[in-house]
């Protein structure tokens, strides 16, 4: 049976590039005339995972689940409230910011908001080289041109401004900017969700090519499970600041255990009109992260919640083969080696009833 464990060991082994240990990030909420702190947004609570060298680790969840906060805290864009982050075995809080920036970079979601409209594309891409004092101006120009060609933007356009490019091209510029310092680790924060559908696949292919070419390690943050499934080697699902499930991609998508993960997968519309299915719709909405529910944070929307779920926070437990689940009743949903291909009829009815009563109430 499952044993209690953390998804991240304490000893950091060689094949781990980034190790996140018990990362917690709370943002103060200020109010009143004196702007006193009146509460905290629990954006991330005790989040732990390891990212192996050369892999793509996915962080998935809905808006407000804390996935972006985790990504940005790893890069020390935000200081963590508590917890440690190790990069190549070294505590990042003790590393120089410049060293960090050369090794870890980020691609942002919005290719419109993330590029300074007053600077030429060449200037945007080369800024990092200049800040780090790398090479002579000529050498820097060569590097800018080289990386532009690699990401598929003609280097003739180095003197143009961001507004002259389409969304997909801007995202390529953002990728060039992130790669020009040749980092080992890239946080991709929703890199395709702002792009037109015909452009998304171009960028996903590019990210895959670059990973092969430069041996990059990715933290891939996204809400689209189909994209995550295609891109990632391992995936952690977050809900309200907590990791609720983590597994290798094939395992997660064939044997999702946590009721939230299962609902998330069920909610994706399937582009096949001949498939008529009973979908499992979870009722209600994300509770406020300033005051997360006691016990399991999913208990307000979970159809199978028991008494224990309202009192005790479920720990992330090891189900073997790198599959971790934070759910008190997870055993009921573990389908490996059992003949339980779907939710039982009763369970399904209970859930459907719960949805109905919540939507007509």
């Amino acid at each position: 049976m499952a044993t209690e464990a953390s998804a991240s060991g304490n000893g950091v082994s060689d094949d781990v590039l980034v190790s996140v240990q018990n990362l917690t990030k709370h943002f103060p909420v200020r109010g009143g005339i004196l702007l006193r702190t009146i509460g905290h947004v629990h954006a991330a609570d005790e989040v732990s995972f390891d990212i192996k060298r050369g892999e793509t680790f996915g962080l998935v969840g809905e808006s407000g689940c804390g996935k972006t906060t985790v990504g940005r805290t790893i890069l020390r864009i935000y200081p963590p409230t508590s917890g440690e982050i190790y990069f190549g075995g070294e505590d990042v809080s003790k590393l120089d910011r410049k060293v960090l920036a050369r090794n870890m970079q980020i691609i942002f979601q919005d290719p419109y908001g993330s590029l300074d409209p007053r600077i030429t594309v060449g200037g945007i891409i080369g800024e990092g080289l200049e800040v780090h004092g790398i090479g002579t101006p000529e050498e820097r120009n060569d590097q800018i041109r080289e990386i532009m060609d690699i990401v598929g933007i003609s280097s003739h356009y180095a003197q143009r401004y961001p507004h002259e490019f389409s969304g997909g091209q801007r995202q390529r510029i953002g990728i060039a900017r992130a790669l020009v310092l040749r980092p080992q680790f890239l946080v991709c924060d929703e890199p395709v969700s702002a792009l037109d559908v015909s452009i998304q696949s171009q960028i996903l292919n590019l990210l895959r090519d670059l990973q092969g070419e430069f041996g990059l390690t990715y933290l891939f943050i996204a809400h689209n499970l189909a994209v995550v499934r295609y891109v990632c080697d391992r995936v952690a699902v977050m809900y309200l600041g907590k990791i609720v499930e983590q597994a290798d991609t094939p395992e997660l998508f064939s044997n999702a255990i946590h009721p939230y993960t299962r609902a998330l997968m069920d909610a994706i519309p399937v582009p096949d009109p001949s498939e008529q299915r009973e979908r499992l719709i979870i009722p209600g909405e994300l509770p406020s992260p300033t005051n997360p529910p006691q016990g399991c944070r999913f208990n307000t929307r979970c159809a199978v919640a028991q008494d224990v779920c309202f009192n005790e926070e479920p720990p992330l437990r090891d189900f073997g083969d790198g599959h971790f689940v934070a759910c008190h009743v997870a055993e009921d949903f573990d389908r490996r080696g059992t003949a339980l291909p779907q939710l039982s009829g009763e369970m399904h009815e209970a859930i459907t009833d719960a949805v109905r009563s919540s939507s007509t109430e």
Partner: protein
Amino acid sequence: MSEVNGVPEPGLQLPERVEKGDLLLSVQNLRTHFRVRDGIVRAVDGVSYAIERGKTLGLVGESGCGKSVSALSVMRLIRAPGDIVGGEVMWQDRNLRDLSDREMRRVRGDEISMIFQEPMTALNPVFNTGNQIGEVLREHRDFTRKQRYERTIEVLRLVGIPQPEQRVKAYPHELSGGMRQRVMIAMALACEPQLLLADEPTTALDVTIQAQILELIREIRARTGMALLLITHDLGVIAEMADDVAVMYTGEVVEYADVKSLFAAPKHPYTRGLMTSIPSLMTDRTERLSTIRGSVPHMMRLPEGCLFQSRCPEAMNICRDNRPQLQRLDDGRTVRCHLYPQRPSGHDGEPLPQARATAGAVN
């Protein structure tokens, strides 16, 4: 409805089955252009589609393809520099383009309603929920204050808002995204419209909330027999909701078919590209994604010939100079592509003299 301004009968642009259906709305050769400083943007250029009573038509396409503008044109909500310059919008037996502003206001919100992508900007921030729904009822129904309140509570309950007696006093900023979308749907449904135009109704929402809203729309559709024009770029949503689908690209319909035929065998290279390039839960993880090369052409620098030629994997010589026309295939669906030789009989394949005749004459 024979020839209008030299344009062939619009019915020929519709799939056979749709043409023969009990049509509630029929958009015929609609052309909505925007006059901007550098020329004319032909946002919608000769678009025809029709919706049968109680059915759902999906309009698919990427940003800028004209899908939203076509719906706004139906509602006559196009403002300068835009203008509806051609075509007809037949609503039952009336042409909405011929109505006075006053008559149009009576149709809007009563017989036809519309919901938008971003509920925060579509709702008025200084009015509470009750006022906004009440306004629709004040406009269209001779209700007493009490009747208005009761109907407001009733529709809020219909769209699954808990404690409607309390929420009726809430302002938009006090509601979550999903709740705001429900309020907007409640406003749209207050007068039990026969047709709902839904422009990306779930795009701004999280997937679990999207699933709730789609389920809600499905339920209301089944209960009231309302027809639906569903605009989205998400083929998954289309597959789950639509009866027929029109695929749009740069202001034109490029393929129009019933949902099952379309997904079973997409004919237009653009439709095929869309379907294969989007990763789904079935995509082979070890293979590269197929892509549609390049990007959508600039609306003021559209090529001669086929508008998709620069991105088409199957472009031929004819595509460079000759703009393909919509034509009906043997199975009744329509497609705009030179890959499908035009049928010799009838005038299905005849060019539309007006469509794009002035394409080169910008300015």
